[in-house]
């Protein structure tokens, strides 16, 4: 790393230091200088700060990928899991101890590629989890292969003649699966990142924050500039209450909308578990139940 690069890393990081969320003052993120993931990391720090989350009650479960390294850069408990398996592991953590604030971080390959079988069930069950899906439309950590969110035609070492599969859209998927909080944000929009991550954490139920977070090292076409030119905020009068409406807008590619698509209040999975478990605590009712 030359000095310039080092300076970039340090700068990104120094800014983050401003909050107390960071774990070790001497641990630098291992990402490439300028990586899209720096800003969401800072946004998470700030959201934690704003909500006065005690580090000891914070558990970050992550997948494998560049994004998966989050737990080592943050003050709290971390579980850097297997590729694609952060979601079920986080589910176990939360169900075992609902007092914990559980956040999942993972990449596009991790979440809708290898982990794509878990995402529907976490969403439909409305586990009280916040899922930051850092979508750079590429496999970063393994050095730049095509991912399930890569655009058609994208040339990479695994699609040397251009990608021939349509990309998936994580926000739309979450809406189809029944997630109760679905937002999309451009990683460089730091304030929006902070706000939406904060809202997601506050939301009771399964929340997806779909972060468009370019890989500056390997992606030649999905860049800060390209994303910047494609995104547009949801109309200011948009009300995030109608799932069908949300589905339609989340599908749009021109522009790619950012903002909060949907927020639905209702019982979480754990609320429903509690209802059942409570019945057994009340002695009068216990006899009524035939098992």
């Amino acid at each position, binding site marked *: 790393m030359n000095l310039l690069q080092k300076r970039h890393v340090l700068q990104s990081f120094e800014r983050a230091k401003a909050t107390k969320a960071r774990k070790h003052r001497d641990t630098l993120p291992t990402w490439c200088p300028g990586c899209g993931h720096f800003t969401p990391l800072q946004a998470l720090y700030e959201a934690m700060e704003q909500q006065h989350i005690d580090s*000891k*009650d914070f558990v970050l479960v992550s997948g494998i990928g560049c994004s998966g390294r989050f*737990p080592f850069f943050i003050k709290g408990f971390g579980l850097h899991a*297997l590729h694609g398996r952060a979601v079920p592991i986080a*589910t176990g*953590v939360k169900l*075992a101890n609902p007092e914990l604030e559980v956040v999942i971080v993972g990449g596009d390959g991790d979440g809708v590629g290898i982990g794509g079988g878990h995402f529907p069930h976490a969403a439909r069950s409305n586990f009280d989890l916040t899922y930051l899906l850092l979508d750079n439309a590429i496999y970063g950590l393994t050095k730049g292969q095509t991912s399930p969110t890569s655009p058609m035609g994208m040339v990479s070492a695994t699609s040397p003649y251009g990608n021939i599969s349509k990309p998936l859209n994580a926000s739309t998927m979450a809406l189809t699966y029944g997630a109760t909080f679905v937002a999309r944000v451009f990683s460089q929009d730091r304030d929006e990142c902070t706000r939406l991550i904060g809202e997601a954490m506050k939301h009771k139920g399964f929340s997806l924050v779909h972060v468009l977070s370019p890989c500056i090292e390997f992606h030649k076409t999905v860049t800060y500039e390209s994303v910047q030119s494609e995104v547009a905020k949801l109309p200011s009068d948009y009300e995030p209450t109608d799932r069908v409406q949300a589905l339609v807008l989340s599908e749009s590619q021109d522009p790619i909308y950012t903002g909060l698509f949907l927020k639905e209040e209702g019982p979480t999975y754990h609320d429903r578990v509690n209802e059942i478990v409570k019945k057994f605590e009340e002695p009068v009712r216990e006899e009524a139940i035939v*098992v």
Partner: protein
Amino acid sequence: MRKQHATVRFCGIAGDGIVTSGKVFSGAAADMGLDVLVNDNFSAEIRGLGKSTTDIRVSPTRVRSMGDGIDALVAMSVGESIPEIKDIKSDGFVIFDCENTPEAREEHGLPEHIPDNLGSFAVPLKRLSNENARSTIARNIVSMGALSYLLGLPPDIFTELIERKLSKKGDKVVQRNIDAFLAGRSYCDEHYGPHTTLDTPEDSEAKKLITGNQAVAQGALDCGLKFFAGYPITPATTIMEIVARELPKLGGWMLQAEDEIAALGAVVGASFAGKRAMTSTAGPGLALMSEMINMAVMSEIPIVIANVQRGGPSTGLPTKVEQGDLNIAMYGGSGDSPRVVMAPTNAEECYSGIQFAFDIAERFQTPVIFLSDLFLGQRTEVDRIERKIERDRSTRVSPSEEELGNYNRFTDTDTGISPWVIPGEPGALYSVTGLEHSETGNPNFDAQVHLRMQEKRYRKFETLQKELPKPQIIGDEDAEIGLSCWGSVRGAVIEAMEIAREEGVKSKLIVSMMINPQREEDFRAFFDSCSEVIIPEMNHSGQYAALMKSRYGIRPHEMHFPGVTPVSPRKIADKIKEVQNELATETSRLAIV
């Protein structure tokens, strides 16, 4: 004729009430104070054309295995029952349906397959059912009447049981079934007279029954299980079904996951969050869990997996027994991946073993794979379990005040065990990972660190080895022939040893629930004390034998039973005699030289 043990087989297809027959007969036997072992044999199809059988072995003394052959066959459907006749012992008998009188029995095609030496009892099951219960559905109850009569068992306990089981359905139903039962008896009394007299137990106290899967679930619930996640798979599903019903009553929860990977993932998460957590599965599911087990090995998270073995490889034989998953349990992880492997041998050990599994998992921060099998998991046996209920039990090693001062999640200790702090507890923050890591938990790929952490992960197993209870040694200490086995085969082996002993050959057995680690010194001493070793197991390739060979340098006689049905004590007894014989010849040949 008098008999000590007796094995009865009901054979038919869906709609014949085979399962009910098994339940009624075994229930009544247990009520009489007889020892009981029941082995169901279902087809992998739901209904359609599937055949099913139930074997019930009863005895006034301990029943350890399904034995060899059957004493009575109740043939509820003809085609399915014909191939079963060959299993009947020379003094056994068959009960089958006949339209009207015994003379009319030729019509049915079954009698010509019954050899002359066997008792052959045609009973108009359908007619008597119709006459007494106004439907053909009570044919199995009629056959039960016939059977109880022919075995010389008293009627009262059967009728009481019928009454108890059916009381909810009203008096009329009860009476009709009792009538059907008695009709079966009187028909036999009228046309045939008694055939066999079963010995009655000295202690005629009624016995409770239990299956291996029930015992696993009960054991886990009693020792503090708080979270279970699973995915249905035969023959393990009943464990998760019991837990689904019972755990909420204790403030816990059973999560049905979308697949086995997610199930074990949720268990890993719950355990990371400090709760006793487990899953249950069978071969194909265990295969899917390979990567997640390894995650738990690397990040030292306690997990318990109850794996109920069925026939393999692949989807294999979902409703047939085999002991085929020892290899994958031991070696199914990529890299050097130590894990605890246990195998209970009966329902008592299903209960106590699963509790021990939790204690080990939590204390040593390791996956424990608990290898039950279909025979053990589904069979009904007498409940000899001593309940040990301790619902907030924990064997977790927490850091001392001092250790907390300078806390590292993976402190390298003499025992290999690092004290742990659970998320939510104050005083320490850390992250764990499936990557190699230093003591702090942060990723680290240095050669020295890797060496150190590998040694630490293996050292836990040495510590555990020292803490293990001694293996069981059974039989004649001075015998030349030693046996070793694992899992549900134990019963048949002990029975075989008894047979061989009666026939003049002594032998001894070493067996332990602990497959890995094992108290190696005890095993080595045992094998050193034998001239020859025999290892019988229910698989094709000798998986346990291979482990014993590699670990102890022995060259055993291997007996591979292909699975599908429980093993035969007779065959093992013959092998014991054969090996002893060879040994004798060998010795005398040496003497001549």
